[in-house]
């Protein structure tokens, strides 16, 4: 296995231009288990492309070379009381991986967390990229200003393309002020259907809920907990908590969780901690119309009766994490059928290499969309050098 670690964008471009065989693209390597298993003789890493290239707190924008550790970005922003709005998930617990998550991989994977339900995904905050395409050319798109409609938006295409459309060398994100205070309302003992109903209704109130998650009984605690997070100035949170508690009095009196306890709870939701163990269980990620969350899970439970199935809800029901044994297809058929019925899609996030080889990792695409995907891939990477087959068979 050859490891290419270019120290500059030019070097990366030269490497790709002269490459003759496919390469796996990598940041810190903490999410190497994501995607379809691929075999390459070489890996191209961004780990030496480091450093913040732009930070203008007053303009709420930060740019960095792709291999810059996410931790460095977050620490730099915290010094000026700012943050990435989309609360990127840390995949290390789930994959039992080590290493440093990089900002480039956050962009390439469109990695978001609980605040995505309110503030948008990584792709919504990503405003500029530089990348090397499969021809070995350095391409820029977007920029450092948050309103920009100049030409085709290749920034969005790169977000979530997992490196199949280019090797990101620099990324620019818009950022937001860190809230002065945070509080979480926790409702106890709701079943999944009521919890999803509560969360969806709460998201429709004007109180700007920045996180809406449900931990069923036995998931991260004995009793089920439904969490609504509020952020803002302290007096604002008192007011909004009061209004919400009144509005949802029928669901009981919520506990208010503050400070480090609250932060730890949301980190745990973000990183799907309650589903991490046992490590040999497969973990699925379902993206659904939020209100269908509980019903979709009920349908899956029915289809997989007798299976040890553990569930965590985020995004007011729009994001469902499922963990279950790897046996057979790890629930793929039942999960895909229920997800499709709800007009959502499912991704096998954690699974052994064997499982990911025999089960479709990503939702299979309609033929016409698959044709566009293949065309777009070829327009960036005609020789199929960059993470070929990671997202789509043959692509």
């Amino acid at each position, binding site marked *: 296995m050859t490891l290419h670690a270019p120290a500059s964008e030019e070097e990366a471009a030269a490497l790709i231009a002269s490459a003759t065989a496919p390469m796996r693209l990598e940041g810190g390597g903490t999410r190497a288990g994501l995607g379809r298993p691929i075999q390459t003789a070489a890996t191209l890493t961004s780990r030496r492309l480091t450093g913040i290239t732009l930070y203008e707190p007053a*303009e709420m924008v930060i740019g960095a070379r792709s291999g810059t550790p996410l931790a460095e970005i977050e620490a730099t922003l915290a010094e000026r009381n700012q943050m990435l709005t989309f609360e990127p998930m840390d995949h290390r617990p789930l994959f039992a991986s080590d290493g440093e998550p990089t900002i480039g991989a956050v962009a390439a994977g469109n990695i978001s967390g609980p605040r995505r339900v309110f503030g948008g995904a990584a792709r919504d905050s990503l405003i500029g990229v530089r990348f090397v395409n499969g021809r070995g050319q350095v*391409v820029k798109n977007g920029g450092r200003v948050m309103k920009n409609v100049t030409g085709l938006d290749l920034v969005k295409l790169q977000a979530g393309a997992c490196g199949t459309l280019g090797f990101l060398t620099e990324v620019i994100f818009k950022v937001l002020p860190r809230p002065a205070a945070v509080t979480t309302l926790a409702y106890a003992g709701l079943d999944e259907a009521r919890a999803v109903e509560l969360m969806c209704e709460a998201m429709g109130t004007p109180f700007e809920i920045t996180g809406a998650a449900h931990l069923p009984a036995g998931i991260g605690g004995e009793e089920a907990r439904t969490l609504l997070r509020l952020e803002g100035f302290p007096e604002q949170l008192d007011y909004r908590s009061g209004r919400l508690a009144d509005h949802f009095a029928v669901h009981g009196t919520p506990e208010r969780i503050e400070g480090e306890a609250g932060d730890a709870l949301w980190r745990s939701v973000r990183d799907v901690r309650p589903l991490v163990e046992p490590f040999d269980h497969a973990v699925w990620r379902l993206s659904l119309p939020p209100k269908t969350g509980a019903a979709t899970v009920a349908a899956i439970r029915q289809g997989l009766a007798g299976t040890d199935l553990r569930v965590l809800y985020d995004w007011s029901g729009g994001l469902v994490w499922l963990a279950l044994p790897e046996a057979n297809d790890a629930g793929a058929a039942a999960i895909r059928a229920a997800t499709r019925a709800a007009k959502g899609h499912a991704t096998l996030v954690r699974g052994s290499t064997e499982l990911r080889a025999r089960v479709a990792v990503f939702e299979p695409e309609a033929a016409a969309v698959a044709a566009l995907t293949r065309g777009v891939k070829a327009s960036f990477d005609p020789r199929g050098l960059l993470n070929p087959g990671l997202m789509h068979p043959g692509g």
Partner: protein
Amino acid sequence: MGAITIPEPDPGILARRERIVEGLRAILPGENLITDPRELAPYETDGFTAYARVPMAVVLPETTDEVSRILAFCSAEGVPVVPRGAGTSLAGGAIPREDCVVLGVAKMSRVVAIDYANRTARVQSGITNIAISMAVAEEGFFYAPDPSSQLACTIAGNIAMNSGGAHCLKYGVTTNNLLGVTLVLVDGTVVELGGEQLDAPGLDLLGLVCGSEGQLGVVTEAIVRILPLAEGARPVLFGFPSSEAAGACVAEIIAHGIVPVAIEFMDKPAIAICEAFAKAGYPLDVEAMLIVEVEGSDEEMDATLARIIEIARRHDVATIKESKSATETAQIWKGRKSAFGATGRIADYICMDGTIPTGRLPEVLRRISEICEGRGLRVANVFHAGDGNLHPLILYNVNDPADALKAEEAGNDILSLCVEVGGCLTGEHGVGIEKRDLMHRQFNAVDLDQQLRVRAVFDPQGLLNPGKVFPLDSRIAA
């Protein structure tokens, strides 16, 4: 005006006009096919009225299936198609050519479904922007992007241009509020991208389509995010002795962790023009004015505005007018919202649209004045200060060709300046034909080549909205 080239029509297509019209009539037998020259005239231009070409025909399909059949026919015949929403583009995004068929989505304007629990609305693409908000207002919801033309413009046009508005500092632009589209490809194939879930599978083709100016396909339906209305909204108006002071005030508001829902900037000429028209009570003795709007309950707004006013006092604020009632709020906004109309009363103008890093504002304003004064032109600036989106209004005399040309040149210089300081050619109006030839200023040949290759995946013949966005001499590199 006339510095912008519109390609000559293809004589081969013009020669086949009758056959093409007959083919279209087979798909749309009734009044939804327009071929009478008098009825075609309204479609000859859009909001960029300095340029106009009468199209060969206009089709106004009522279903996705009709759109599909029209595109399949036109692509088989090699006929260019210009998609059109309401025709409010300020960049000439919907200006046709004599050999083109204009495909208007105006007759597809229904709300298909509203889902409050999922906070989504599925609409046909010809619906106006404001009609979406009106359809959900009773339940306390709204659709966030609010371009100035929202009474007229369609969601199809908003998607094509990734439109913004005054409130995107908090709520984002179209792409951040769009969850799915039904897209008809140039060969008539219908694809669904995105959906009611928060993120779509696979490559973000939805994000690519948004802002693609009608060159990747025709959007016939859209699923958009609807949001709960805030409990209330209230602005405060500040007058400053300099644009530097106003800019520093904006920076400090943000540094204090406050993200207002809108921060609008006006310079002295813009204040004078708007005040003369709207009698909004704007201060005439200041160099710069900010309108800062916050949302929340009354108590929340009191508290946030108190914080903002305290910050403004540290920046030599000369005038403070805090709205105390709905009437005062409407009055403060009336001046700003009538900026374009008020300017139009005193002179012809072109409305520019570029984006700059907000920290460069004072320098950019100074150089904009130099650019315009150097040509003997007047300029007024309105600006979405939170996000760096600048709208200089260059005043000129439309009946004087030399004056018009100077205005166009000044506009180009201003946009080049935006790029030079790290910004971009267009923040929310799109490239259209207006900025097509400036694309080289922002992108090099490789950048443009990659975009052209992506476009060719969707439309290999380049039939959709031709002659827009990319410089006319653009070719995919061999």
